[in-house]
């Protein structure tokens, strides 16, 4: 039997040609995708494998809980701040530490800045090139490009001369033979649909965004002290304010933050959002990649308005779970409940005493056990084909009440929409109206991409709200940034558990900690990519990546642009490299997954 139906309702057929895409991603180590294509080149089975062990849990055992953030910051080269924040939150939760109002404001500002910068960079420097043909931009008419730009946005950099200069600069770069970030792509593929002028406009904004994103990073530098790895502290934030300018963060720097926020709002609303709409309007018929998004979505919610209160009403981004696509009911999520979040390893390269049961992260076990299934091809050091009926990934399979869930900006947006959040409803309805699309269009690769863009704008505007609240608090005389009452381990209980959780740009992130005799007894991180890239579970549910790839036609197996589009829409990593191999393992092409 090659045809089956999964527990979560997806039809799989493994009879067709197998294609292996082996991108190397840094978030979870390496990521590999295998698909089966039918006679019409449509994906009928997809297998997501993380093929590098992430042993963070083991590294942290026995260390000082107050240092854990510095280690977790090194898990990944993109999400430094979110891991550090989640780690200090876990320790604060365990020790019942209340943080000052300013610390909450600064953390919110730093995370919102991270959303803004990360989403912007993801769109222009990773994902846009799945839709935008750089080489075609060389053929564009600068005058027509200028007209196009002026028809969609008031952004001032729009003269024919400006686009002519950019085009000439691009041409010199291409002719030098060093395409750099633009090398190894599928330029000229029929899957690209934009006219040359739209391509030139988007590539020009690629350069502008590259320049502008450096400004947003300064917010991290100002509040985090050291760069590129900001400082954090259990109990608050390690920076200090001095509005009169005697050391610490002064008015000059705060004014700089305020100006960066204003410029971020303008850039995103006048460049990113109009580009997103313009590009999307040419791909309205490419409705693939929905996967789990029309069924099961999860968000922990984040950005507490008032410090130390994680209630639903206090979250700028409300959390919850949607099951079976029923938007009329949003379920509350309790990360402490052992029945809600569980990780399974039946198909993961780990060992549990009982392989058919899931474990809540507080009871989590990270015991690696690498073995290939009986139907795998190749060897342990050179896997040619995965056997997905056996263990096949170093990523565990997290489930919420037994359901495979999608996390990320689309999940957050659908949950917030279903919760009736006015700001988000207005954004979503406005975009769908402008593009003349129904709500169901959100449940797709492009929907994921659109939600990320809207959220980038949301985050930039929220930076303004948070900054103003922080300034009001500072001007009222409260300059405290950290609560160090519980700093000394002698003040701690001997055996406690805590959880830090929130929403990283890529989705729901949780760190569960068990502290015993002032040392880390157990530490488990369930990261966004664990949810999205998860392998199957004992019930047979497939994860978000696997589900999203099903049903997608691939025009040319040697150039799996369609697979990359959908995987990129989840934002797996900043810089990845992909090898595309034929069924016999021969390397056909090397592409860049930016």
């Amino acid at each position: 039997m090659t045809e089956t139906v999964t527990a979560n309702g997806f039809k799989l057929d493994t009879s067709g040609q197998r294609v292996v895409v082996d991108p190397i991603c840094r978030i979870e180590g390496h990521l590999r995708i295998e698909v089966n294509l039918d006679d019409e080149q449509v994906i009928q089975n997809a297998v997501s494998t993380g093929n590098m062990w992430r042993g963070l849990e083991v590294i942290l055992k026995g260390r000082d809980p107050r240092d854990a953030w510095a280690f977790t910051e090194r898990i990944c080269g993109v999400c430094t701040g979110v891991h550090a924040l989640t780690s200090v939150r876990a320790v604060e939760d365990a020790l019942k530490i209340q943080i000052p109002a300013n610390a909450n404001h600064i953390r919110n500002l730093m995370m919102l800045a991270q959303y803004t910068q990360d989403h912007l960079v993801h769109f222009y420097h990773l994902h846009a090139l799945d839709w935008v043909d750089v080489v075609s931009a060389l053929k564009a008419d600068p005058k027509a490009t200028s007209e196009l730009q002026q028809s969609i946005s008031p952004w001032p950099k729009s003269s024919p001369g400006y686009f002519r200069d950019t085009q000439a600069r691009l041409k010199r770069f291409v002719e030098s033979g060093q395409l750099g970030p633009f090398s190894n792509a599928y330029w000229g593929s029929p899957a690209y649909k934009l006219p040359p002028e739209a391509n030139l406009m988007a590539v020009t904004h690629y350069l502008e965004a590259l320049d502008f994103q450096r400004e947003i990073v300064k917010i991290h530098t100002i509040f985090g002290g050291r760069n590129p790895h900001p400082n954090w502290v259990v109990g608050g934030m390690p920076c200090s304010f001095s509005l009169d300018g005697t050391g610490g963060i002064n008015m000059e720097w705060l004014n700089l933050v305020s100006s960066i926020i204003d410029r971020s709002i303008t850039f995103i609303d006048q460049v990113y959002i109009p580009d997103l709409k313009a590009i999307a309007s040419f791909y309205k018929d490419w409705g693939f990649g929905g996967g789990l998004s029309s069924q099961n979505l999860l968000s922990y919610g984040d950005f507490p308005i008032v410090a130390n209160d994680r209630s639903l009403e206090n979250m700028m981004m409300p959390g919850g779970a949607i099951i079976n696509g029923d938007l009329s009911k949003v379920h509350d999520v309790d990360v402490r409940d052992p029945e809600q979040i569980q990780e399974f390893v039946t198909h993961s390269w780990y060992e549990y005493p009982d392989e058919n049961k899931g474990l809540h992260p507080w009871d989590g076990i990270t015991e690696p056990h690498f073995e290939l299934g009986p139907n795998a091809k190749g060897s342990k050091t050179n896997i040619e084909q995965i056997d997905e009926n056996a263990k096949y990934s170093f990523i565990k399979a997290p489930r919420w009440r037994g359901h495979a869930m999608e996390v990320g900006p689309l999940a957050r947006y659908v949950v917030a929409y279903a919760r009736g959040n006015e700001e988000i409803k207005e954004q979503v309805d406005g975009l769908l109206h402008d593009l003349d699309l129904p709500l169901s269009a959100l449940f797709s690769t492009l929907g994921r991409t659109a939600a990320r863009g809207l959220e980038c704008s949301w985050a930039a505007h929220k930076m303004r709200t948070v900054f103003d609240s922080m300034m009001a608090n500072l001007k009222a005389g409260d300059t405290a940034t950290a609560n160090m009452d519980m700093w000394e381990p002698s003040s701690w209980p001997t055996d406690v558990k805590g959880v830090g959780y929130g929403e990283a740009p890529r989705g729901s992130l949780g760190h569960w900690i068990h502290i015993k005799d002032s040392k880390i007894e157990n530490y488990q991180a369930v990261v966004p990519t664990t949810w999205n890239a998860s392998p199957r579970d004992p019930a047979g549910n497939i994860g978000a990546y696997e589900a999203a790839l099903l049903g997608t036609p691939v025009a040319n197996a040697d150039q799996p642009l369609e697979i990359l589009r959908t995987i990129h829409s989840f934002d797996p990593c900043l810089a990845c490299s992909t090898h595309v191999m034929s069924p016999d393992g021969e390397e056909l092409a090397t592409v860049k997954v930016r």
Partner: protein
Amino acid sequence: MPVDSDVDTLILGIGNILWADEGFGVRCVEALNARYEFDDHVRLMDGGTQGLFLLPWVSHVSRLLIFDAIDFGLKPGELRVILDDDVPQYMGAKKVSMHQTGFQEVLMSARLLNEQPQQRALIGVQPEQLDDYGGSLRDGTRQRIPEALSRACTLLDEWGVAYRERATPLDVLDLIGPGELEMSTYELGRPQ
């Protein structure tokens, strides 16, 4: 502090200190900082595995010195110095790990913005072992740190960048990374 324009020289260690020899670059900058003092226009940085986050610091200096673990196809522990236009090519030639692709893109992005440092140098070592998560440098790699430092000093001399032996030992406030990740502390804390 925000990016300041008076810094014209960046000495950058890149790599993941949690992956054995991958930490070489960061450990070199740490050692350089422990031994020497520099003027204010020189910035030493633990770049970790950060990609585009490094662009603001890379794109406005005129001199860039990078320490890293690179697969040159040499014997483990061998050291090599690469200059100027050869730097990005080497970083992309054979990837030991993804941060090199990331960093190569940082250099290319700086070039796209017409803000590439005029002088660039890479001091790289051929790693011995990478897949020991939570481990530290292997002996053969660790022993190359003094040589890497002396090659760096030669380059700085050529560039006319001054440095002085520290008169008093490094203060904790001068560390370039969090104290708990400093090499000896990191190694002591490894679980058995």
